[in-house]
Every structure is written in C-alpha cells, then in structure tokens.
C-alpha cells in the first residue's frame, strides 16, 4: 500500500536543547489505523504536532499525500484532520457553528447538510444547537472529532482520544474510529493504553524518548514477540530448582511455591510434555497449572525497558 504520510529524518529540538524527536522515520499507509504507543513524554504529541504544522521541525521532511508540509503546506494540511489531546473548544459557541467554522477555516465552502451528516455520524445531531459548555466531557471529545472531520480529511490524527474517558465511552470511541476507517479515512492515534492499540490498530508503532523503536503489523508483532508461560503451582515450596529440571530455565516464584516455564508459541516443540514428565520424576507434587499469553503490554514494557 502507498504511504499517505511520510516522515523522513524528522528532528525536533527545543531552544533549551531538549531533543523531543531524534531522526524519526515513519511511513503511514493509506487506509490503515496506526497506533503510536509510548510512555508520557515519549514524543507522541510532538510528532503529531509537527506533521500537522503546529510545531516547526528542526530538520527533516514530511509529506502528506505527496505534498511537503513546509513548502506546500496548504495542499498538505487540507488532507489532515487533528483531534488534540486537550479539550480546546469555545465554550459559548454552539456545536453546529463551531463545526461549521472548522470546515470554512480549511477552505471548504459552507455546507450545512455535510456538517449535519458528520454530526449524525458522531451521534451529536440532537445536540447541534447546544452551547459547548453544556456538553459532557465525552460529548466535547466528539465535537473535537466532528471539527477535525468537518473538511472531509483523508488522514485523521487522534491524540490520546480516550485519555480520562470512562470504559464505556472508550469502547464507544473505538466504534467511532472503526466507522471512520470503514469510510476510508487513515487514522493515526496516540495512546498509552495498550489495550486500545490492541483492540483497534492495524499496525503498532512504539515510540520512546523521541525515537521510533518499531512499527509493525499488530498480529505479526504479537506472534513474533508473544511468549506463553506455564505456571506450575507446587504443593510444597522448593528452595532450589531440582537438578533434573535445570535445563528448562525455570523461574522460582511465590517463595518457591510456583515454577514458571516460558516458551515460544511459534516454535516447533514447546517442551511442555518433557518438562511435565521430568517434573513427575523428581517427585514434586503439582497442585495446579496455569498458562498465560504475554500481552502487548508485556511486549511494550520489554521494548521500552531495553532502550532505557
């Protein structure tokens, strides 16, 4: 698939010398949902702000739909919609007028029917004449999305769309994102909720300390790095791992009441059968057995730890 957003050697250093982005390279494919995961202060918002034109890059090049964001900023920005992290809205305006304002600002002629259609898509239509200050937090976030969609962009940036949003609304937001993808919009969202990336993204990018650590297909990433663990609970605690089991690289847990065996799910042989046979030979009594699949969260924590 062609890249609709291409970031090349992007660097952003602030006046104080802090380097928020260190030579970032990133291609975003047309029509995908890319989740950018990273801890607080990793550079997620700076990356988005720089692509959208709010922050000026120190060096590097960004193109959107083939248009350079510096030299051909009008064409590039027309393709982009941005939903910021903070709820920044004019409190005294109505929902309809603020969304209509966004459309005009991006150069589109006034089209009330189109604005109404967007409001319906986001279940905001019955609130269209309400003042922003009368809305709940979740509704305000929807208004921000409606504003970003008002000029019918091809690429939508969602900066932490579900930060501070309750579980129900978060799921609701995921449905909205899925609907947008279905309508052909490319979506880039930043989040530090791993489950969010796991639930909705096609590809996952991990960013930490201003560097992109990896960008990979979500399923591949899970398969490649996904490990499974067996936790063997013992009837009696062991002080040390018996010699017969030393070759399995077991970990002692719960003060010797559990043994943990990690294995690769994609490997030809998992080694589980021989482990259990050898365990029986040692005479240790097994109380219970649990398996656990490593989540994206574990992968993420491992990755960020490695670079720390």
């Amino acid at each position: 698939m062609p890249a609709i957003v291409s970031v090349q050697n992007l660097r952003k250093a602030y006046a104080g010398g802090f380097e928020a982005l260190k030579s970032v390279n990133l291609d975003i494919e047309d029509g995908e949902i890319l989740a950018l995961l990273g801890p607080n202060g990793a550079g997620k918002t700076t990356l988005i702000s720089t692509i959208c034109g709010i922050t000026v890059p120190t060096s590097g090049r960004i193109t959107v739909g083939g248009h350079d964001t510096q030299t051909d900023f009008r064409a590039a920005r027309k393709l982009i919609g941005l939903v910021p992290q903070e709820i920044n809205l004019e409190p005294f305006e109505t929902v309809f007028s603020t969304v209509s304002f966004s459309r005009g600002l991006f150069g589109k002629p006034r089209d009330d029917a189109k604005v109404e259609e967007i409001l319906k898509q986001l279940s905001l239509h019955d609130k269209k004449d309400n003042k922003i200050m009368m809305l709940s937090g979740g509704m305000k976030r929807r208004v921000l999305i409606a504003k970003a969609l008002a000029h019918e962009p091809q690429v939508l940036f969602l900066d932490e769309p579900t930060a501070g949003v309750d579980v129900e609304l978060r799921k609701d937001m995921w449905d909205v994102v899925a609907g947008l993808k279905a309508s052909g919009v490319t979506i880039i969202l930043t989040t530090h909720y791993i489950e969010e990336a796991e639930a909705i993204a096609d590809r996952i990018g991990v960013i930490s300390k201003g560097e992109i650590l990896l960008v990979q297909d979500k399923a591949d990433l899970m398969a490649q790095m996904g490990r499974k663990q067996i936790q063997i609970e013992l009837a009696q605690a062991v002080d040390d791992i018996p010699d017969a089991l030393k070759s399995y690289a077991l970990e002692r847990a719960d003060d010797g009441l559990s043994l943990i065996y990690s294995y690769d799910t994609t490997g030809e042989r998992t080694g589980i059968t021989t482990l259990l046979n050898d365990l029986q030979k040692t005479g240790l009594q097994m109380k219970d057995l649990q398996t656990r699949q490593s989540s994206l969260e574990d992968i993420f924590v491992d990755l960020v730890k490695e670079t720390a």
Partner: protein
Amino acid sequence: MNFNAVWTIYIFEMRRFFRTMTQSIVSPVLSTSLYFVVFGTAIGSRIQEVEGTSYGAFIVPGLIMLTVMTQATSNASFGIYFPKFIGTIYELLSAPVSFLEIVAGYVGAAATKAMFIGVIILITSFFFVDITIAHPLAMVAFLTLTCISFALLGFIIGIWAGNFEQLQLIPLLVITPLVFLGGSFYSISMLPPIWQSITLFNPVVYLISGFRWSFFGTADVSIGLSLFAIALFTGACLAFIWWIFKTGWRIRQ
C-alpha cells in the same frame, strides 16, 4: 488565497460582537453622552469656539477617534488572545491558512466593530450638537484607516499578551494617554509652544488632526502629513505581524 477561511474567521468574530450587541452599543453611547454633558456643556459653555467651531462640535471627531482606537485595539487583541487562552489556536495553526488570511479575518472583524461603534457615536452626537462634515469621503477613509491600523496594533498585543492583565496594559497605559494628549478635546495651538513641539511626537495627533480636518476643513498639521503618519503606522504594524508569523513568536514552537 483561502477566501473561505478569511470569511469564516470574519463571520465567527462578528457573531461574537452581535451576541453582546446591547453591551457593544449601550456602553459607547452612554460614555459619549457623558463626554458631551461634561466637556460640551459644562466646559464648553466657557470655551465657546475653537478655530471657528463651537466647542461641542469640535470635540466630536476626537471623541469618535478616542472610542474607535480603543475599541479596535481591544477587539482585535481579545479576538486573537481568546483562542490562545482557551487553546483553540491549534486549529488556526494547523489550517491551510497564511498569516495574511488570519490577520485579514481577525483584524477585518475588529475594524468593522470599531467602525460600527464610531458611526453610532457620530449619530449620537447629532442629538447634542450641530455638525456638518466638510469632506465625507475623507472622513470615511480616515475612519477606516484608523480602525484597521489600531486593530493591527491590537492583534500584536493579543499575540504578545500572556494573561488578561497584559491584554489591558497597553490600551490603558499607552493608547488612552496618547489619545487624551493627542488633541481629542483641544487644538494643539491652544498649548504653550514647548508642548506644541513635544505633542508632535505623539502619532495620535496626526490621526485626530486629519480626521478633524475632514469634518471642519481645519487641521493642526497638514493633511499630507496625517496620511503619511497613518500609512507609516499601518506599515509598521503589518511588518511586525509578518515577523511574528515568520518566526512563530509566542504562537508556534
């Protein structure tokens, strides 16, 4: 040129003005009436005539200028400061608009509001004094240029201001004294010679003088000089705004 964006900003700002229509009109009408009562009637009864014009009529151009300059400045500064304050400026910065388009929208709206109030004061003054306008076209031109140039200044203040106190600071500490000392309520020729020279450093003198000439055909300084001063002031503001957007001063990191 993104005309849709300019028009959108303009209309959005004008709507804010019409939402607070009563305040927008009542307060200038009331303060102007007070000026007429205090200056025109109480003091004017002792001064009688200035340069062949009754004192009540003489202060009309100055009164209009006083209000128009403050209104243009405060409207424009608030117009751009408010999005900065509540954070909606992100949208302006990420939109496909150039600095000229943003300025045209905000400054255009602020200048229109100031002009609107200027006209209301002029109408109000007809109830208090007899005035005829000698050069109506020049009057409109001076009024328009003053509204635009002071709205540009207000735009700069709005970008510069880091809080609401700073937003009030320049209009209060600089513009009001300059306007009061710029011959709003008197002719420069009424001052002692030394003060006449000092006053010439006040840019507002040229604007009020030119505006008053369009009413009565008499001026403190030549009309050419007045036009030059206002053009210089507008050019300086525009250059400064161009620099702001070029460097992202106080708006873009």
